[in-house]
């Protein structure tokens, strides 16, 4: 018998926040901005040049670091990336910062004390340097990955003549990371359906077995993909985009960031 249809529609508020399941595109935030519209290889070059200037600045010139940070804040604003998002994502550097925090307590040479604590000057400077430069590096990486899709970054690297093999490996990773995570999820569901829930160390053996099975499956898939590629005439080169010239104007736009940093750096040297 055919039934009467009575659909229950679940509202979006009930669904809560929707998480994209695309591992490869999770970092990208779609916005319309100058930063987003720049060609990827130009962005990568600009980011690296800026970092180069930052790294060659001594931490004792702290005024410059304030300037660098304001440049980054400006770029974040131009790229329409919420400061809060950048701040949350930069938490990834915490393990490295922890290490840097310990540095002033160990070392040799000149010592001074703040209250009851003895600190080493060299260690303190080195620690500050790691935190300062590291944070700027992380923030630049965040701007790059939030304004550029993973696929575009790869295209950019390809244009910058990164070895084909590395680009190929990375693009296969990007293509199959979702397939493998889906497979992992199916295996987890299959385990859970038979009453397994990983709660502690005694379950590691089962998880390890599952990981091994996943590895073998992925390896076999790799072989099948390779066969499929050979069947369509693969001989070591993946098709790539025809090279299009990027105008000088676009380069100038992108290189404003490292240029301003360099200018400040040079002015500082002259002024001293």
């Amino acid at each position, binding site marked *: 018998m055919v039934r009467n249809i009575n659909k229950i529609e679940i509202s979006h508020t009930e669904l809560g926040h929707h998480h994209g399941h695309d591992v490869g595109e999770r970092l990208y935030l779609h916005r319309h901005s100058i930063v987003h519209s720049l060609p990827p290889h130009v962005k990568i070059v600009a980011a690296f040049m800026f970092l180069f200037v930052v790294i060659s600045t001594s931490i004792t010139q702290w005024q410059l670091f304030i300037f660098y940070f304001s440049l980054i804040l400006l770029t974040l604003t131009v790229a329409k990336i919420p400061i809060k998002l950048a701040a949350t994502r930069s938490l990834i550097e915490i393990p490295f910062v922890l290490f840097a925090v310990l540095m002033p307590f160990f070392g040799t040479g000149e010592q001074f004390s703040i209250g009851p604590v003895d600190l080493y000057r060299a260690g303190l400077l080195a620690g500050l340097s790691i935190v300062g430069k590291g944070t700027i590096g992380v923030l630049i990486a965040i701007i790059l990955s939030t304004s550029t899709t993973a696929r575009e970054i790869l295209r950019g690297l390809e244009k910058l003549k990164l070895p084909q093999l590395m680009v190929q490996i990375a693009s296969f990773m990007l293509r199959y990371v979702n397939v493998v995570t889906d497979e992992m999820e199916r295996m987890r569901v299959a385990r859970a359906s038979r009453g397994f829930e990983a709660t502690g160390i005694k379950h590691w053996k089962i998880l390890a077995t599952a990981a091994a099975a996943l590895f073998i499956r992925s390896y076999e898939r790799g072989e099948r993909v390779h*066969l499929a590629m050979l069947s369509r005439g693969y001989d070591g080169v993946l098709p790539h985009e025809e090279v299009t010239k990027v105008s000088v104007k676009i380069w100038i736009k992108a290189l404003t960031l490292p240029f301003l940093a360099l200018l400040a750096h040079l002015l500082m040297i002259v002024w001293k």
Partner: protein
Amino acid sequence: MLEPSLKIEELAFAYPDGNQALFGVNLVINKGERVALLGPNGAGKTTLVMHLNGIHETTHGKIFVSGQLVDAQDKEGLKKIRSQVGIVFQDPDDQLFMPTVGEDVAFGPYNMGLRGAELEKVVTKALALVGMSEYKDRPPHHLSFGQRRRVAVATVLAMKPEILVLDEPSSNLDPASRRELADILRSLDVTVVMVTHDMPYAYELCERAVILSQGIIVADDKTKNVLTNEKLLKDNRLELPVGFSIN
């Protein structure tokens, strides 16, 4: 006379571990034919398919594609053979490895030396043939299984093959996708070899069927005759689905 699309003579093959899969296969398939390759699990169907474009090297016997010998040693010849024998693998995720549908369809013709506008034209046409034109810039994992299977067919069609070899084309498809794929296959002007366990699908699409069993071809006839021969089916672990009958 026109050369047959595919001619297999006395093909035998054993895997390096000594496990022999093929024991002397003889088969001729003429231009424009659609042939179902039936057989139980482990009959050697996949092994046979892997020989058709030189992925497995022939150890005994010969294979000709449009009169040209398949020789795994002849790298240049093999490139041509691989453009002529288009294999659609069972799992579309194995076949679609490029970041977008369009780039994946372009992969084969690119390897054949096409570039620029010509490449673009071939890609557009192949996607149109399977009705997937508007998905050109989408990543494959965003498509449904049926759509991915259709794109997989397009990736092979883009190479303008002489023979289209499909490994279990109807597996995991919902009834509508299964019928849509049948419509697409029927509309193509190409020789088709279809490896399948789906008897009604074979009956619907192929006028001729061969049964491969224990590494040898045991039957080669009109599909109707093969599928109505109960003893033949039973002897080779094949069955028609319950409720399905051919008049």
